[in-house]
């Protein structure tokens, strides 16, 4: 047994196999030559089998992070592990198992869609050229491009280009898919199809990392999320965990606002604010049923009692700030 074999065996037996992470980074940092820190010490953890929504405003460092994951950019410091192997050392054995769509599709304009896929397949040494035509036809079919396969890429619409980009990732079975803005430029049907595609991939056991700013999309597709802001990972975990970290607000509509406010403070709710129709306060750890009981018990005339669970969008705005300014 050679030293390399021993190393491989050790990697397989490593404890990390137990809590398998498809993507794991430790202190991943990228400082560009200009001195700008695009990614600042982030610890990503994408559990195997998860659909991980990678969120953040424009310029928050998502794409730089994805490029570092795929070995396109060398990190200034920190480490990356993909599918349990350390990058960029294991590029040759890991990347064939990873499908990627990075910052939009890119193809040769003078080649047809099919020829572009043929070239993409030729670049991957792990695939069998004897099955290339069949796999290419299947990938084209899966993204609905069979009819346009012979057209030159330059004649493709934005949506068709995006589909062709997805087709490359589907040329062979993958264990991990990294999809940067996969629904960019797609019409509502196309967006739906991508959602189904991600769903199917996940059902087959593929881990999917989707970066997007279409939060409703992410909310429908993802089991886990990570939120980037100004180069930092400000939240990460399962959708429930991340949502749970945000405060639920209680809105009480009543004419006895002053009394209601006192009662809410008594049962331990904080951040009470008067509204034109009543009071709003943070629920915190309190049980909503008991709060209502306390209000009614104190004789407050409650017309309406609403719990506001934050949507992903509220959460996103809370974490990354409001407004259109590109942060750096």
């Amino acid at each position, binding site marked *: 047994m050679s030293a390399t074999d021993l190393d491989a065996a050790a990697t397989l037996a490593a404890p990390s196999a137990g809590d398998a992470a498809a993507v794991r980074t430790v202190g991943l940092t990228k400082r560009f030559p200009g001195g700008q820190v695009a990614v600042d010490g982030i610890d990503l953890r994408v559990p195997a089998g998860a659909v991980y929504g990678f969120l953040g405003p424009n310029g928050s460092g998502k794409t730089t992070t994805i490029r570092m994951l795929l*070995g396109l950019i060398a990190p200034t410091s920190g480490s990356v592990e993909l599918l349990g192997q350390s990058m960029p050392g294991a*590029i*040759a*054995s890991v990347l064939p198992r990873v499908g990627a769509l990075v910052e939009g599709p890119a193809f040769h304009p003078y080649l047809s869609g099919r020829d572009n896929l043929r070239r993409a397949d*030729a*670049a991957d040494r792990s695939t069998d050229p004897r099955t290339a035509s069949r796999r290419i036809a299947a990938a084209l079919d899966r993204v609905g491009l069979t009819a346009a396969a012979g057209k030159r890429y330059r004649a493709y619409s934005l949506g068709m280009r995006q589909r062709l980009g997805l087709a490359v990732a589907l040329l062979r079975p993958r264990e991990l898919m990294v999809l940067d803005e996969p629904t960019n430029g797609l019409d509502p049907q196309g967006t739906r199809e991508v959602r189904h595609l991600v769903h199917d991939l996940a059902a087959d056991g593929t881990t999917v990392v989707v970066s997007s700013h279409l939060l409703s999309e992410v909310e429908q597709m993802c089991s886990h999320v990570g939120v980037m802001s100004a180069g930092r990972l400000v939240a990460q975990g399962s959708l429930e965990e991340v949502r749970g970290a945000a405060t639920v607000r209680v809105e009480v509509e009543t004419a006895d606002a002053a009394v209601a406010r006192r009662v809410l403070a008594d049962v331990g709710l904080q951040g009470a604010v008067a509204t034109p129709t009543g009071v709003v306060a943070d629920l915190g750890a309190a049980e909503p049923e008991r709060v209502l009981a306390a209000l009614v018990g104190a004789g407050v005339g409650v017309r309406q009692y609403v719990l506001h669970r934050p949507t992903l969008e509220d959460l996103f705005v809370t974490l990354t700030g409001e407004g259109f300014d590109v942060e750096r």
Partner: protein
Amino acid sequence: MSSAEVAARPVPGRQDDLGVGRGRLMRSELRLVFTRLRNVALLAVLSSGPILIGVAVKVSAPDSANGEGPPFLTSITQNGLFLAFTSLVVALPVFLPLAVSVIAGEAVAGEASLGTLRYLLTAPVDRTRLLAVKYLSIVLYGAVATLLVAAVGVLTGVLLFPVGDVTLLSGTTVPFAEGLLRTLLVAGYVTAALAAVAAVGLFISTLTEVPIAAMCATLVAVVLLEIFDQVPQLDSLDSWLLPHDWLAFGDLLRDPVALGGVAHGLLVQGGYVVVFLTLAWARMTSKDVTS
């Protein structure tokens, strides 16, 4: 190089198929280079050179007494084979390097500007292997361009002028077949010169995401070196300038073949190839691909 690397790190579950896919990227690259309309048009323009020169010489035979014009021009009317040499002499300083600069400039910068570079690298294609494939395809394009100029030169020469035994520059006469062989040798030497241009161009191509800039910079570099070669104050540098020995291929048309100039030329071209491929490799394997 990279083939050994892949053999040492087989992709799990596919060991049985290892090797089946060898050379696919190279074939894909050659198809890309040789089917692109612009590149084919360049070859067509290059091969029109010998026809133009042939027709011009046929219509008004140059006055052998005044000795003007490119070398071998006056020999064409005696033997059509010399049209091939004349055409190569005319094409070597600018036209052939131009064609090679276009392909070389496009090589990495073109993929970067399209964005296809990031998809090649995540396929994954090893960066060293990508560079090797790119370099080989540029050199092959240069070889095809050179052979095309020589072949069209020979054909036009045969059609328009008398052919037969060839009187070499040293005065010896050799059979036409040997003359053809010498033509091949000359084409090989010209290809070696273009291989050096290709290395310079490939390096420049790794520096930018704008292919046209890489193309221009490469051609400008070649032309500048040709000008330096003519400046008397730089005589001491002369013999190390890339184009200095390019026209030494006349030595291959002597009997016996005079190797001095050609051997020195090959040595210098080889040096440029090694230095610039090393630079290109250093740049390629360390650069952040943000395109």
